[in-house]
């Protein structure tokens, strides 16, 4: 049994069957990549895992507990964090505040009426947030408005925010999309380091094959809402069906 079990999940938008019959098992402490052409339903699948969408059919269990019917914040508190395809951060807040919020969420749970004590006096949370920012080389920018950061920095901040929650499962939706080569390599290194240092499972959606083959332990290829094949990176590379359906596009 994997840490995440997706069984027979289907999702329809009007006339469009975005997800057909998705079965997926993500092993604990592995890195599982999901690849597939645009519109294959990858983001939709992630949306079904975090409570943003409720699938029409099937079941999703995380660490043996059903995820369906729970609200997004509950699912997150179970230990699933997600990095979105376009960075979702608190644009109007400072970088440090962006970092503090997940630290509070980890310490205090989904609601705490802590309305009198000052944020700056919460030593434990402050230290943790600063530590995370230093790890990500964002400490110098802590007083910056998050909105005014570069796209790469926003992405790293979002990853840091997710990691601050110490999730058991980290979902990444095209984390290197729109990044320059150097930034992409930095992200690969960062994710490798996270994988080594932490007790964490990663599920990553990615277009860049270089990223996928440097990180993934297993790969699922999704096309038109159904998994085509699932295998190790080496096998996937040589798979004729995959070459035809997906890799063919980017091989040349």
């Amino acid at each position, binding site marked *: 049994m994997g840490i995440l079990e997706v069984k027979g999940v289907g999702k329809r938008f009007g006339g469009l069957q975005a997800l057909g019959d998705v079965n997926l098992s993500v092993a604990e402490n592995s890195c599982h990549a999901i690849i597939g052409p645009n519109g294959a339903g990858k983001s939709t699948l992630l949306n079904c895992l*975090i409570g*943003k969408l409720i699938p029409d059919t099937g079941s999703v269990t995380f660490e043996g507990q059903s995820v369906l019917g729970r*609200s*997004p*914040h509950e699912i*997150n*508190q179970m230990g699933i*964090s*997600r990095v*979105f395809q376009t960075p*979702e*951060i*608190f*644009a*109007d*807040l400072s970088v440090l*505040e962006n970092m*503090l*919020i*997940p630290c*509070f*969420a*980890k310490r*205090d*749970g*989904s*609601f*705490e*009426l*802590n*309305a*009198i*004590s*000052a*944020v*700056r*006096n*919460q030593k434990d949370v402050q230290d943790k947030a600063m530590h995370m920012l230093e790890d990500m080389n964002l400490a110098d920018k802590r*007083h910056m408005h998050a909105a005014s950061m570069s796209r790469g920095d926003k992405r790293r901040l979002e990853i840091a*925010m997710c990691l601050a*929650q110490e999730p058991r499962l980290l979902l990444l939706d095209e984390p290197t999309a729109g990044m320059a080569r150097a930034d992409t390599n930095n992200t690969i290194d960062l994710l490798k380091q996270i994988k080594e240092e932490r007790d964490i499972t990663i599920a990553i959606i990615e277009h860049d094959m270089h990223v996928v083959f440097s990180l993934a332990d297993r790969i699922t290829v999704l096309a038109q809402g159904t998994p085509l094949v699932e295998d190790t990176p080496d096998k996937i590379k040589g798979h004729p069906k995959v070459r035809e359906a997906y890799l063919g596009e980017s091989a040349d």
Partner: protein
Amino acid sequence: MFGLEKKDLRLLMFVAGLTLLAPFLLNPFPEGSAMAQFNAGYPDLMQRFVIFGIFAIGFNILFGLTGYLSFGHAAFLGVGSYSAMWMFKLFGMNVIPALGLAIAMSGLFAIVIGYVSLRRSGIYFSILTLAFAMMSYALAYSVLATDMDGPDKQGLLQKGLTGGETGLQLTLQDPRILGAQTTESGNIPVPSLFGVEMRSATELNLGDWVFTFSAGYYFSGVIMLLAFYLSIRIFRSPFGMMLRAVKSNQQRLTYTGLNPKPYTLAAFVISGMYAGLAGGLMAAMDPLAGPERMFWTASGEVVLMTILGGAGTLIGPVLGAGAIKYMENILSKINSDILHTWFAFLPDGLENLIVGMIYPFIGKGWHLTLGIIFMLVVIFLPGGLVEGSQRIGRMFKRKQADDDKPTATTEPAE
């Protein structure tokens, strides 16, 4: 000190200074001079400044921090006033229990109204709060104003819970079981704080100037300072930060494991209680409560105050409340005779022309002036009066820096 950062402490001290010295600051012109009508240092108006300041400070906790725009906060103002009045009628004229009940009742109302309204966001939230406030108005105006004593009895509920159009008033028959039912001279007693009557005042004559120190004003002023202090603490707390996160990106907040609902509801209830406190104080200053206090225009007014002063800033709502109440009470008193005396030095034709041009903006036309100022602020100073003063401050600083370049130092961010 007080658990505040230096910057915030300075702001609190600034507001405290303004509040304590208001009778002087607002009366700069000698009695009897032509400018005396711009004096705002009389108790009735000063009380309104601080009471609406409280209302706007509380409103800002909801609107300024979370971005949820309530169009029905006057309902809580009304609930606070009626609650305080009933406390005066049933138990006695001490203002402390009256304010306590005002806060508690408006809090209860806010839980119900907030719970329902917060099921929606954006414009739908605003409309729901507006609907609730108008329902409250209708309740106060007619439904709860029917004779609940029966035709032959002349008791407490003769005019219902709210007194309808004429409002809820004190009478000689009110039981006031914990205090005196009537004064020694047989009159209705007045609200007081352990014997100090709210309407009592002393005057200080300095040359041509007359300064009035009113017990009611200072009592309200101290309460406003407490309310302001509490709002600073809320702004700087983890709770306040979460409220700003709700405004910034609610989606990220939920996917960070936080439940926005209780946060927004708590903000709604806190701001409702501030409104209730303000309503209770109104009744304490002038023991009368009418349904018009809940009318939608009253809800709109606090929105204007907050935006005009600077939503989401600490001091903005206080400035906005002061500015609007000043215009309402001072501009509206200027009439064409006064204008003619001002411009009498001009040739007749020109005098009439200028008076004719200004006339629409004064007296009953003060709303026009308010509208124009509001538009100018929203378009050119989206951060309100606070942004305006910051810009002036920066201009001033830059000039200073230009003057003494060698010693100029850059200030650290924050």
